[in-house]
Structures are given as C-alpha cells and as structure tokens.
C-alpha cells in the first residue's frame, strides 16, 4: 500500500471508530483462544469496533503446497467473510502476509476476483503493526513481571516489516525487561507443513533456536505467530526448559488467564 494512503487512513480513523474484522487464524481459533480475546481487547482499547465473521483458514497451507484451486476457494471465502470491514487484522504476520502479499497473486489472472483480493489485501494488517502504525498506539496499561525475549517470525518480519513495533510496545509494559536473543531473525524451523515433511531439519533448526532462547536467560519467550510459538514451545518443553511461551498479544493485553503454551493447568 502506498504510504500516502496509510497516512490518510490514520488521519481519518484516529477520530472515528473503524470496523475491524478479526481474522482469528486457524491456529489461534483451534489452539489458543486467549490470543483471540487479547486481540479483541487490544483492538477495542484502540478505539475499534471488532467483528468476528465465521471463518476457517486463509488457505496458506494449500498455497504453499502448490494447490492453487483450493487456495482460491478458501481465499474467496475469506474475501466474502470480511466484506464490509474497514480493516482486517490478524494476530499473525504469516496469515496477514498471506492476504496482503499473496492473495493478489492467487487471483492475478481472475478479472472478477483480482480487484476484490486487492481491496482486502490493502485493508489487512498484522495486529501489532496495526495498533502502532494505523491506530497510533504507543503505550499500554499492561503489566508483566519478567525478562522477555522476542522471536521475529519470518513472514511478519520480511513480508510486512514487523520488527520494532512489538518491541516498542513491550518496552512500555510495566515490569517487562526485554533482552535480545542471538539470531532473533533466523527462522525457528516451523515453516507450516515443512516441520512434518522434513522433521530432522526442522528439529535441528528449532534446537538451535531453543538454545539461543535459553542463552538469554529470559524467563519468557514471546512472538507474534502461533505456528512458530507452538514449534518453539514444543521444543523448549521437550528439552525440559522452564521458559514460559506466550503470544505477544497476551502480554500486551495483560491477559494471562491461560497457562503458557505447552504448560498444564495448575
């Protein structure tokens, strides 16, 4: 999206109450509703009206597996589901990136759907960058006592430029001490179906990532994508690490009602 357009949106919406469709993402929907509720709270606190249309998945697994037909079918459902929303926001750089960067390509030879895909793409944001860049959020009332390290998920980082935004907000959370891990920008080895197609490579990558996380001495690992979080949490737990793993939205919303990812109910 051209910068001018973003700026224009910001100017208008700071004073109005935009209608934001929450793209829950399939992993949050299935595994961690707490992230969805955190996103709702953050968006409402930022002055948005939040709606949650019925949805399943953006189609990325099909897209990355070379299945164009199923991708297009699933993308059409998403496009229809979010018609009438001023913005669409996902607590995931990967799913937001799918809509923003890939939906236009899915429909590049489809005269009817291409304009619709473009319109959705331009209105779709990753949660934290939406809060900071579109809604101008700079401080939050949350509190989290702990030393936190943040992993940059690949799609958010490289497709959408999510890097400083979550760190900026985290520094404003009372009690948070942010420490950087080595190679924070290196992939954790999740990669969707990659992690089960090539488990040994994925295992080596997430093993290196777990070591980098533990080397920081942080007690909490945060990131913005459930796939990466489940992968890293699963490995940290397998190695017996006590590092708590949460989606960044939970900490920013101050909603710690669910146990950390991969930990039981006490």
């Amino acid at each position, binding site marked *: 999206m051209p910068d001018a357009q973003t700026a224009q949106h910001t100017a208008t919406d700071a004073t109005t109450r935009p209608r934001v469709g929450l793209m829950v993402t399939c992993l949050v929907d299935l595994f961690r509703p707490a992230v969805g509720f955190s996103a709702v709270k953050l968006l409402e606190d930022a002055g948005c009206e939040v709606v*949650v249309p019925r949805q*399943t998945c953006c189609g990325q697994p099909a897209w990355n597996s*070379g299945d164009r037909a199923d991708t297009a079918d699933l993308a059409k459902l998403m496009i229809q589901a979010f018609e009438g929303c001023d913005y669409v926001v996902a607590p995931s750089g990967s799913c937001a990136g799918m809509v923003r960067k890939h939906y236009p390509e899915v429909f590049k030879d489809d005269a009817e759907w291409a304009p619709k895909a473009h319109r959705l793409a331009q209105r779709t944001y990753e949660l934290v960058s939406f809060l900071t860049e579109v809604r101008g959020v700079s401080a939050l009332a949350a509190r989290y006592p702990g030393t936190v390290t943040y992993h940059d998920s690949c799609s958010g980082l490289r497709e959408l430029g999510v890097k400083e935004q979550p760190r900026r907000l985290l520094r404003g959370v009372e009690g948070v001490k942010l420490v950087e891990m080595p190679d924070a*920008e290196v992939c954790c080895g999740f990669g969707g179906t990659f992690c089960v197609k*090539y*488990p040994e490579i994925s295992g080596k*990558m997430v093993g290196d990532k777990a070591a980098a996380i533990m080397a920081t001495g942080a007690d909490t690992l945060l990131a913005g994508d459930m796939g990466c979080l489940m992968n890293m949490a*699963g490995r940290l737990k*397998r190695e017996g690490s006590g590092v708590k793993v949460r989606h960044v939205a939970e900490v920013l919303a101050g909603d710690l009602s669910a*146990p950390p990812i991969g930990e039981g109910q006490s």
Partner: protein
Amino acid sequence: MKSTAHAFPENVSAALRDPQLNKALAKFKAGFPQRRATAVAALPEFEALRDEGKRIKDHALAHLDLYLEMFEANVVARGGHVHWARTAAEAREIVLKLCRDAGARMVTKGKSMVSEEVGLNTALEAAGLEVVETDLGEYILQIRKEAPSHIIAPALHLSKEQVADDFRRIHTHLPHDRQLTEPADILTEARVLLRDKFLQADVGITGANFLIAETGSTVIVTNEGNGDLTQTLPKTHIVLTSIEKVVPTLEDVSTLLRLLARSATGQEFSTYTTFSTGPRRPGDLDGPEAFHVVLVDNGRSALLGTEMQEVLRCIRCGACMNHCPVYHAVGGHAYGWVYPGPIGAVVDPAILGIKEAGHLPNASTFCGKCESVCPVRIPLPKLMRHWREKEFEANLQPAWMRQGLKTWAWFAKRPALYGAGARVAMAALGLAGRRRGRFGMLPLAGGWTSQRDFPAPQGRTFQDLYASRKGRTHG
C-alpha cells in the same frame, strides 16, 4: 555429476549426524553473513544497485537472442570461436573435441560450476586426459573425489586437518613429516605443485561470471589468481559457460561486479577480475593462441518466457545459501546435485526434472531470507512454490500429504461443518492434554513429536467461545 537429489531425506540424516560437517557449518554461518552485512552497510547505494542489477539482467534476458548473437559476432571479430551446446552431452563432446584438436594431454581448470553441471572432468579423464583443478578448494575436492558443497566455497565442509591428511596421502614425493598445520602451509604446498601444472598444460578451461556482448569478452573473478594462470599460459583457452551469463555492456558488468563480491564474500571486489577478449594479438606479451567459448543451454532456454525466467538473473554469488537456515543445517552435499541451497532448489528441478529434484523446492520454510539478500532480487520462495505447483499438478507429492491436504481443505471450505468438527476435536485434545499441557506422542503426528512436544489446545475454539461470551452468533 550423478544426482542423489531424490534421496534428499537420507542425505539429510547423514549430514545431521556428521560432527565435522556440523562444526564447519557453524563456523560458516557465523562468517559469511556477517561479512556481507558489513560490506552492505558500507555502501549506502547498495539497495539501488540491486534494483539496477535486476534491471540489467531482466533486459538481457528479454533480448537474450540478440545479445548472444552480438556476443558471438564480437568474439569472432577478435579471432575467437563460439560453440553452442544444447545439452550437457553436447558440451562435453565439444570440449573434448577441442582438447583433441589441440593435441592436449594435460588440461588445467579454473573453478567452473557449469563444468560440474555437465560432468566435464569425468568425460575428459575417460578420454585419457589429465585434468587438474587449480582453485585450491576444487583441487582438494578433486583429490578426495568429492563434489563441491558450495558454489563459491566448494570445500567449506572440510577441516584443515582433513586437507593436511589428504595432502600427505596424495603428495607422496614430499617428506611425510613436513609441517602442514597452518592454512599457509597447505596453500604453499598446493601453489608449488600447481605451478608446474600451469606450465605443462596444453589447454586451460575456465568458466565465466559474465559475458559482454558489446566487446565479446568473458569475465571471471577469483581470489587466488589461478584463473589467470589457467587461461593465459596454455596455448588454448576454453571458456565453458552458460547462455544466461551475457549482459550488453562493460558498464553493465561493472555494476554487477559491485554487487557480486559484496554479496558473495563481503569483499568490495574480488582479488582478481579478469577480462578475456579473443586470443593473443600480435605484440601481446602473453595469452593463448586459440580462444574458444562454449555456450551451454542445458534446460535454461526452456525457462524463458515462463514464470521461472527470473531465476536466470542469478549471478552465482552464493548469498542465498550463505544465509539459508536449511543450508546451515545440512550443508550442500545433502541437496544431492551441483547447485545447493535456495538457488539449487529452483535451478536443479529445471535441469534434472521435478521428479528427481522434487524434494529441494519443498525443503524450505519460506523464511524469505534468501530473497532478502539476493543481489538481483530473485523471488526464490515464489519460484520454489511454482515448482510445488508443478508437483501438485503432476500428482508427485507423497500420498499422505496430498490426501491430508485435500481432506483439510474439504472441511475448511465448509465453515459450519469445520466449526463443529473443530469443537469436538479440540475438546477431546484439550481434555487429554489438560494436566500436562502438551503431548510427547500423538497419533499421526510423528513428524512433529519426533522433534518436539505438541502443545495441547485450550479446549474450546475461539469462535465457539466468542459466540457464547458475546451471547450472539456469527455475524
């Protein structure tokens, strides 16, 4: 070179269990990316240069026929010869014939990935020629009978101790107890040995990093100077290269050279950049009497005009593999053929066929690091995805994966049914995992749980909870 790309998973298992390889890769991944980052930071216009590099190559590829013919005409005008090879076999035959016509017994070689691609050494040796690789890394691999594991650092998988052992094993004319502990010792020994070979060689074969249409020049970059000795001392110089290397002008090459070394090794410029324009002219102090350029297609022209054309921009710097977490994990040999890493994952299926090399474009998390460092902005993940599309269309993916995907997509396209199924499944999984919060083993999830625990879901789906909390149905 015989491909083992089809056996990628087995190659991976072996690579991950190789402690020396793991050590070498750990060192490698700490070095190259850092050096590139430093070089790029020191050149403010680097991103603009990448755009310009892309533009130059796109232009050359859009008019490839024109520039290749212009290149040929200019080589011929300067007294050289151009030979066209459609396939690897034709390339081998042409080079072999040129060597025979020159009455050659010994051939020295500069580093050339195209010669690996067409399997040149085996063909020349089978015909009774002595072939000597003169790039130090390639020389080491030649005596070990191994393939390169990286396109610009071919022996990065080895330790200096391994090389010292190989030198003692092969160079039996030297005292066995000589000192070979430092890289400089190894280098000196190779240099002395190779010096004789340079002087004895009848034919010198090099590759080319670029071909310049307006002058008929070929360009190589090296850090050892071996390429210069290979191509200037023997009577015949053969340049074995591929068609997509041509660019219109000297000016274009100087732009691309500014990108190449920085992207590859983090140097501002390679130690030697050598332009070859025809054979020795009257009055020249040195240079070959005969100058031949063999232009190899081997599947490249079939990519023109397709969605894969962009891969032909590649200038073979190796930045994509230098930064690839999968390459860092398994090294180059696991890929099973000449070009490893992200560029190999796109190029190898084009040359070997998707059936043989199908694993390679799948063995990527699409993390996007490769594309972010490519000096000519090749969208490598997108091109790998195109190969996956071709696999899907040809029904080549494993049945479990295809069936799983189809079943999942069938449900995902029926939101009400999907929601109902998800509620039941997550309730069961959530209950079973409630106390521990994760599973060490799970049916049908062996690929996941072999490497990590599987976090349990909270139990109810978000959409279910949201609807009941808000006291409303989906809107």
